[in-house]
């Protein structure tokens, strides 16, 4: 009897051990999964609702001072006044001026920003790159600038995508799109409203841009 009860206890203990180890292995696999991770989707480099009545497409280079001025002087106020209200959607397109003196790190910045956009961190990295333009465009410290606004885990994912060439094609396709639209300088801005696309000057004043957007909204 003691033998049978001992055997039963041993069997129960083994079954429990097997269950626990199986669950543990599953848990380990689940924990390991994010590292191997489901491949992130294509980058979303837009700000605002997809149902906004006006769409602004900005071809930009992160090293370009005029692009920075446009970001600080127009895009930031637009985010508050129009994007937050669902009136405008801003789409960023990378147009790194590779080969132009002073733009040696533009492509790297575009790659980091595109990788960040693939994990939903576009806005943070976009802002950081423009804010710290004077630093990284001079010494190439793109990684450090991006590291300051991302969590270690997100930064690791971004670095992995940049180093393994997983975002080059997206930057290239943005540039090809710009070339097909005859973009020759940055920033080049297209505003689409009511099915009609207009080219807007890059160094436009915010007050005139506002008037134009209001006019489009009132149509």
């Amino acid at each position, binding site marked *: 009897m003691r033998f049978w009860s001992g055997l039963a206890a041993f069997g129960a203990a083994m079954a429990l051990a097997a269950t626990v180890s199986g669950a543990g292995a599953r848990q380990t696999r689940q924990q390991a999964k994010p590292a191997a991770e489901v491949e992130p989707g294509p980058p979303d480099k837009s700000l605002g609702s997809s149902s906004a009545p006006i769409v602004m497409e900005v071809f930009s*280079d992160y090293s*370009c*001072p*005029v*692009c920075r001025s446009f970001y600080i002087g127009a895009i930031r106020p637009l985010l508050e006044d129009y994007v937050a209200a669902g009136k405008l959607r801003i789409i960023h397109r990378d147009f790194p*001026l590779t080969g*132009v003196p002073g733009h040696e790190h533009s492509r790297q910045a575009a790659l980091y920003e595109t990788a960040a956009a693939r994990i939903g961190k576009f806005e943070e990295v976009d802002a950081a790159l423009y804010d710290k333009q004077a630093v990284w465009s001079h010494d190439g410290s793109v990684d450090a600038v991006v590291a300051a606004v991302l969590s270690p885990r997100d930064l690791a994912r971004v670095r992995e995508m940049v180093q393994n060439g997983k975002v080059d094609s997206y930057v290239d396709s943005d540039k090809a799109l710009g070339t097909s639209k*005859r973009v*020759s*300088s*940055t*920033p080049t801005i297209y505003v689409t409203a009511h099915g009609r696309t*207009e*080219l*807007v*000057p*890059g*160094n*436009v*004043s915010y*007050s*005139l*841009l506002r*008037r*134009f957007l209001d*006019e*489009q909204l009132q149509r």
Partner: protein
Amino acid sequence: MRRYSPAWWAMTVGRVILGGVFLYAAYTKLRTSFLLFAMAIDAYKVMPEWMAVATAHVLPWVELAVGVALIAGIWRRLTATAATVLLAVFFTAMAHAYQPDSKEGQISCGCFGLGEPISAKSLMRDGALLALSVALMIAAYYVARRPRPAKLAAMTAGNEAAP
């Protein structure tokens, strides 16, 4: 200038070409929001914003009027002078804003809408139009200063009758 003479033909063709360019320039501006043209003018940073807005309201209509008058051949001295002044202002502003080899913040010339950045090509085109306009203006003043055939005949008749 005698009608249908080579000089007359040259002047007529020149006027129609220049008038057509002015009409096209006016059309490209009037078919879109005047604010787009105001932004293009403002981008030159040569005048306050309110003046850029006012200019964007008025200039396309002036271009339209000059274009029609040039093609119709009316008020030749006035229209040729107006075209010359306008083109000289455009050319000076473009030359001032031209940044050769720059890929950042290029200013749109604003000549025919907003798609064309200021380039050596657009400057040469504007320069050629300015030269044509100056030639038309000189010819218009030259023709106006010469006595007309009817007047000449009257003068000749008067001289013959005098003795």
